């Protein structure tokens, strides 16, 4: 019993939060202004609780297992959830159904936690569905807006189709090995044609969820149409969780097929980086722009994954940590501005520095970090990813990735130029930022500047593996 409580700690806390919100909803109507700070405090406590009593162990006949590294990954997701609740508080306060929004968000996160810890294909499928279905409902949260419902429709259809593909792959895998347990399956894989076919189906489903390029078409539309809190959830938490699961599935279960997936990863990551970068150049809407930039970032994550060992795993976790701060800071600025005057075009940002220097500096810092310019943390994240990818001595591959970083610099700096240099007759007027939002921005900014200089963190992640 005691073991059950400590091992499943993060899942149980999430369930507790969901039920708490359910009772709040059932009782008399609580105002958003009182409920939101309460949720923020609860999320902070949840985040802190994630750092204690982390052990290795498994439950329910190997269906669920956890290690300190998985607990750390869950804490990263908790951190991102806390930051979203702070940064998007402008939109959250205005929404009519605040408890429902957080209920959906927490159920998706519960699904992601179980997904990270799953030791069985059945558990894996169930938690993947729990992690994606509520997100589609979150995308539809601006009920009256046409774009929001269109985004939700695209999200639910593409995720349903991709889980159909995933299931077909799982069924072939079951036929080929006769087991659905990851631990038994790893020993039974021998690169027979049926297993490779099953693996390709599975890989395709992951590519859909991670928006790797031939399967990325839903991403930009969903990001643009959803409310900005849902967009930041999708681009940071959802993507991070799926990346963690993808990497652990590849390494733990499909380790025997490394030669097969190495080639797939190399080809897909090059296409992903190139297409993501080229399409990001021509975007005008800031959310769409960040969507394509996040597609390009996934390409870099794939470079790290292709290493196939401890360095690849550690570099991906480290990169996701940095990506949380930089991407959320960028989305936070976009959220504050779109909340205040509804403007989401990059052209509207011209002359922002004159009126809102704080927001301008935050956006510039976040974009520098996403582009990977040295003093910011993003540089170190990309550095470790490319170092891990270079372990196989395929130097042309690393060269292509590095060249893509230069291309990405062009479009990130385009936004910075619009903010700092371009003249505008009617810039966005001065926006008052509430203290909680400002605190979250300062947290993100300090993290972006300091994480890269604090070198012990990477060693710490490496020691968890």
């Amino acid at each position: 019993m005691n073991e059950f409580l400590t091992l499943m700690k993060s899942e149980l806390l999430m369930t507790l939060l969901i039920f708490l919100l359910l009772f709040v909803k059932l009782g008399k109507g609580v105002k958003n202004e009182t409920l939101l700070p309460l949720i923020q405090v609860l999320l902070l406590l949840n985040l802190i609780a994630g750092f204690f009593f982390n052990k290795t162990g498994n439950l329910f006949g190997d269906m669920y297992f956890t290690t300190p590294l998985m607990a750390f990954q869950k804490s990263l997701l908790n951190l991102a959830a806390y930051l979203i609740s702070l940064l998007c508080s402008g939109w959250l306060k205005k929404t009519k159904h605040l408890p429902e929004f957080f209920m959906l968000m927490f159920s998706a996160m519960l699904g992601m936690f179980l997904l990270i810890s799953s030791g069985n294909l059945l558990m894996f499928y169930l938690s993947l569905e729990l992690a994606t279905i509520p997100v589609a409902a979150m995308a539809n949260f601006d009920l009256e807006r046409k774009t929001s419902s269109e985004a939700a429709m695209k999200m639910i259809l593409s995720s349903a189709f991709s889980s159909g593909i995933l299931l077909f792959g799982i069924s072939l895998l079951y036929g080929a090995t006769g087991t659905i347990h990851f631990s038994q399956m790893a020993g039974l894989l021998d690169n027979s044609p049926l297993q490779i076919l099953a693996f390709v189906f599975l890989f395709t489903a992951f590519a859909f969820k991670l928006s790797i390029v031939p399967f990325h078409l839903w991403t930009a539309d969903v990001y643009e149409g959803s409310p900005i809190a849902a967009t930041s959830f999708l681009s940071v938490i959802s993507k991070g969780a799926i990346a963690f699961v993808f990497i652990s599935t590849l390494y733990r279960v499909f380790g025997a097929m490394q030669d097969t997936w190495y080639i797939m990863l190399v080809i897909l990551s090059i296409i992903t980086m190139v297409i993501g970068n080229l399409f990001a150049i021509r975007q005008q809407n800031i959310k769409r722009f960040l969507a394509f930039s996040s597609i390009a970032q996934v390409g870099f994550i794939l470079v790290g994954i292709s290493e196939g060992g401890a360095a690849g795993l550690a570099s991906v976790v480290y990169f996701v940590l940095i990506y949380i701060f930089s991407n959320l800071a960028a989305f936070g600025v976009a959220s504050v501005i779109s909340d205040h005057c509804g403007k989401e075009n990059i052209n509207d940002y011209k002359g922002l520095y004159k009126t809102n220097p704080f927001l301008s500096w935050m956006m510039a810092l976040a974009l520098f970090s996403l582009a990977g310019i040295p003093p910011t943390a993003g540089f170190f994240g990309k550095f470790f990813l490319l170092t891990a990818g270079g372990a196989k001595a395929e130097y042309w591959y690393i060269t292509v990735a590095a060249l893509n970083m230069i291309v990405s610099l062009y479009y990130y700096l385009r936004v910075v130029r619009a903010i700092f240099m371009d003249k505008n007759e009617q810039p966005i007027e001065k926006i008052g930022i509430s203290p909680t939002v400002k605190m979250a921005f300062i947290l993100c900014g300090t993290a972006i500047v300091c994480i890269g200089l604090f070198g012990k963190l990477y060693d710490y992640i490496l020691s968890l593996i």
Partner: protein
Amino acid sequence: MQPGLYHILFISTGLFFIGAYGFFTRKNLITMLMSIELILNSVNLNFIAFNKYLWPNQMDGLFFTLFIIAIAAAEAAVAIAIIINLYRNHQSIDVDDAEELKY
């Protein structure tokens, strides 16, 4: 003649690709949802066939099938709720009419 594993696999693969074809070519959202159900049912057939003919000692495949049926219902419920809301905003459930987000 007794039906063997290959007969069932042939049918289920056929169903899978019919579903995929329907998903790519139909414009009506409900029909697209039905195509996804076809895909899921082909997976169910696969699981049962593998369980019966190849691994008859355990029940893994049968249990997986039950869970897939339940999840498919949940997914359809959310999808239909979203489609109803789309209908309220666009007065249509044709994918070609939902065209605000492009490029």
